[in-house]
């Protein structure tokens, strides 16, 4: 459970990094 909660938090942040990446990629396409 200790590890699961830690990974849950890190996984959430990973999704946010992914979001930055996706928007940055689209940004490049537009510009």
């Amino acid at each position: 459970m200790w590890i699961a909660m830690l990974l849950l938090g890190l996984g959430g942040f990973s999704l946010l990094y992914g979001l930055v990446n996706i928007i940055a990629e689209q940004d490049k396409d537009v510009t």
Partner: protein
Amino acid sequence: MTGGAVPLIVVLVSTSVSWPLALYMRRVLDSTPAKTDRCLIGNSSETEQGWASYCCSLLTLNVLMFLLGYVVLTTQGRLPLNPDGKASLGPSLAFHTAISFTTNTDLQHYSGEALLSYFSQLVLMWLQFVSAATGIAALVAIARALAGRRTLGNFYLDLFRATVYVLLPMAIMWALFLVLCGVPMTFQAAAIARTLEGTTQTIARGPVASFLAIKQLGTNGGGYFGPNCAHPFENPTYWSNVASSIAILLIPMASVWMFGRIAGRARHAVVVFAVMLIIYLGLIGAAFTFESQPSPALAGLQVADLPNLEGKELRFGVAASPTWVVSTTATSNGSVNSMHDSLNPLTGLMPMIAMWLNVAFGGVGVGMINMFLFIVVAVFLAGMMVGRTPEYLARKIETPEMRLALLTLLLHPLLILGGVAVFAPTDWGRTTVLNPGSHGLSEIVYEFSSAVANNGSGFEGLRDNTVPWNVATGLAMLFGRFVPIIAPLAIAASLGRKKATSEGPGTFRTDSWMFGTILLATVLIVGALLFLPLAVLGPVAEHLSTSF
């Protein structure tokens, strides 16, 4: 209701002080790195960042904050500064608390005095500084982008300056004021007192004043004690209450002025400030009116002529509670000086509306960022109405910006409504509410609204320290915090890269009262349309069922 002077003093003083504070913030946050900056954080302060790099730095620091909070909370039993021998927190509560303080929410599923060591409280206090500084840094970067600068600055430099030059000095002064008011500041263990009956009583204390100062100034709101600012050690006197009410509003208000100064549009900031103030005052007026009615539970009794006194600290005066209720939820602060669960049903709707809209000054930095999203939509709607390409600060708003703005605005209701839809009909939510019917639904709605809006106040009446609640609201806080920072940064950078158009007589001016009216209508209509069903099923249904 007596004591109508409280909101008047609070609004007048905080508005007046916010302007010079904004000038100071602009001066220290948006200048070239000084020698002291380079000495303290090295030459990295010179590195300019684009929006994606700025976001990654922001996220990386917040990952470290989460990790530190999680490790400390799960090991506090073996760490120093634990004179009362507090045990370590369980994993799901530690996860929830670490996310909560990292995201500037400070939603607490525990009582600080009962479960946390002094060391943990100090680490959470540090998180309150850095999370507030994160919001300020993000707003400064957005304002720079909208001013047409090629880079957004350096995140670590902005964070450092917001912490050391703005939050820290203000918090030190505020903590000293609180100590003078009688708030404890000690590392001694809990006091043991012998009562008149001959039994012993344990009186919790600790480094409270330092914790409270940043809690109010940084729109954090996490209480050192479970009852938060209703506890006499957190809020000892009438004047500590008035001063804290002002502290809640100060930096969120100054953020709006600062945004206008950095973006080079001071008149635009005046209009935005006015729209926020209208929403804030409207909510205060409504809260006062509804709370001046007696509690429905006392209808027909001789005390029924009094305003609703349930759940209030009468030493502050009755009017202090509705003022605080609105201020703390409109600004995403989340501290409480009365029990929101005991508010009359329609008064209880006001903090929910404040959190649903989340723009009446909002959190430190992020309140203005949320309003920026509504501005983009309002400008787009106005442009469509007159058949012109929408422009904001002389830059065209096109499909990519609109797509991001709308997706971010829709995430807010999606997380709240989705959470309620999962918890209200299942045992995860039903078995944890202490009141049946509409009031129980309001408790669930409030908890998700508070989490997603990064507010942190509790309606209470909810057994929320369960694994499903800790996980669901933890994730809601995480996405409710960072998506509305990432997307606006991308939008502002995209707008800033565009060639500025010359403003002519046909340009829709964003420093006009017409723009203010459209912005206000956009905020209210979008908010009303998205959340009206929840309001009707919760507080409105409760009001109707107890009034007839």
